């Protein structure tokens, strides 16, 4: 197989693959939290925590992950919610739902994110807290 054939084969393969998947952007080397985390919504049945990072790149779907609990040294519960990465945006907002928390209870939490493949991003927040209504 000569060089032209190799280039032709690679280009066909590339076009065929790119036609079948969402664009996968290059992973950033240094992911960081730009804003938050903060409590976006606190209702009796639903709490939403959000934070903004630089665009992590990588898999088109990423999960925001919240580890939480009533003991700041023992965050036993985990909630995670998917978001679609927009490769053209410079920043990314992660939002995670926590359903049916106990009323009038203080919860402690940290936030982080993972790719759809399960690969964990390095960034993780310090422990924060909030109290449900």
């Amino acid at each position, binding site marked *: 197989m000569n060089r032209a054939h190799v280039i032709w084969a690679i280009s066909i393969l590339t*076009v065929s693959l*790119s*036609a*079948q*998947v*969402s*664009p*996968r952007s290059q992973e950033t080397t240094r992911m960081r939290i730009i804003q938050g985390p903060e409590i*976006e*919504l606190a*209702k*009796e*049945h*639903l709490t*939403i925590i959000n934070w903004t990072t630089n665009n992590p790149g990588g*898999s*088109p*779907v990423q999960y*925001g992950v919240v580890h939480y609990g009533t003991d700041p040294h023992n965050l036993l519960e985990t909630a995670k*919610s*998917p*978001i*679609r*990465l*927009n490769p*053209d*945006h*410079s920043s990314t907002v*992660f*939002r*995670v*739902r926590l*359903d049916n928390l106990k009323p009038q209870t203080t919860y402690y939490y940290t936030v982080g994110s993972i*790719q*759809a*493949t*399960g690969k964990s991003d390095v960034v993780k927040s310090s422990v924060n807290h909030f109290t449900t209504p």
Partner: protein
Amino acid sequence: MRQARLIALAVVLVVIVTAIFISAHLFRGHREGPAAGSAPLYDPYPPGILPSDLNAEIIRVQREVDFIEDQAFARWKALGQPILTGQPPVLQNTGTEATETLGELMLYDTKISPGKNEACASCHMPYSGFGGPIPSVNLTMIAFPGTVHFRAGKRTPQRHPYAPFFPVLQYNQVQGLFFGGNFWDSRATGYRLRIPDGEQAQGPPVDTQEMGFPDAACIAFRLSQAAYRPLFEEVWGEGSFDIKFPRETERICSTPGGAAVFGGSTTPVPPGAADRTRANTVYDHWAQSIDSFEQSVQVTAFSSKFDAFLAGKYTLTPDEMAGFRLFNGKGNCNSCHLAGRGTPLKSGQTDTSAAAQVNHLFTCFGSANEGVPLNPRDAFYYQTKPDSHGFIANPYGFGYRDLGLGTFLRSGFGSGPSPNLSWKQYAPTVDGQMQVSTLRDVAMTPVQCPTTEAPGPYFQKGFFHNGYFKSLKQVVHFYNTRDKYAYPVTSGHCPKGTTEKVDCWPMPEVRNNIDMTSGNLGLTDQEENQIVAFLQTLSDGFTKPYANSDTYTGACMRGGSAATQGNELLIPAPQLPPCASAICGVAPVPNPPIP
């Protein structure tokens, strides 16, 4: 002697009359009326679920279907003489149009159903972007009635323009995601034909609540009797129908699928093994022909304002352009409805990006759970009693939950068998997910009802898989405020002082895997309207007329506002029983458990 002559004359007359009858049958058979009425009506529905004009509207659509079928016949007759030449053999000059016309003739053929009263097009007409053609059904029961009046499916008819571009369903290991397939739950994977759109076309003819044949061999049987059989043989070869169908085939194929008399068999027609293989091949050619039509410029036209804009032949209005910017920027819609363009992030910034080397299909071929509320008007919930054939569509009633792709990966109730066991492990990660449809033609309406939005005059459509949304304004408002106005109630139970779909969104039908890209976007009312204006630029028919978009003979609706469109017909959801174990108890079970 004279008596013998009279007998001979009588025989000749009988032969002539018979010939005329057969001829008339052959050429007009495709416009025969429905066989509906031969069986008692199936009506397990509480008052108000079926729209009052349902019968009249079914007849209206059938008339329109027959009209387009006649036009397709004329196209076929106008085709040039076939020239089969070359190696491999090709129908030179006419092959493309012959195959597309064959697919069109099939799509509008009402005889491909036991009652000879239901074509694919009965639920997919061009003037609604090949979505549901009956406004009152879109407004109420959302799933369309099938060959048995009135069994009905469970979801809205998904628009099929651009569906041929969806790839074979695959699990992308690198991205950890599913891509492709057809149907809301992606169950037409394309695993065998490698054409998901074609495998999709093989679904409804044997779906018990749609066209409803009891056996896939019935399609070959009915096609063998079709007036356009010569075109089929021209495209797919002489001898395609060399199949010995047993005498009882007509009786079997006139009985709807799921009938108790079949005892659960999906192959009640007893042709021999070789004949069944040939019948299956005919059904594969059915799939390929319809895919060919659906990919033709008659259906997948790329003739919208947006296409003209990309070609530099149309200037978006200020609202359309603002909507386009919001679509890509603050609205973040293009994170999954890929527009193929860069993203201007700031007000006044100009999009200078070159068009990407892809078709602008406004989908990522993926799936997502947007947290849509359960729609208690969905006809599926009420089909809990046996019909006159002994068939029950949904024994679980409101215990049914639509887990979409998750149920399919489990080969679960209400979906189809998955061809790939290795996918099953991922079911809990996709519960509740439905296919991300293309946005092209989402706003398409008949010419005389130029919008989907009240006050109109408008054509009522149903949006998303369960038709909960009745206008594009509501869809965009939902993306914008789903979480801001979230209430722990089901539809019809919003708190006093709130208005459902305006400042109250009932809880999601499936809480798992809810996509959080949107839900609190901070768009203003005007910005929502601008995104709707942009979506309306995606309707085909701007650069050239869209085929048969002028065939609607029904009425337009008028009055009200897009924000509350259809709210007058909201009904309170009953107290929901737990999710049926046949759905939520199938391993690997949903995580967290679905109540």
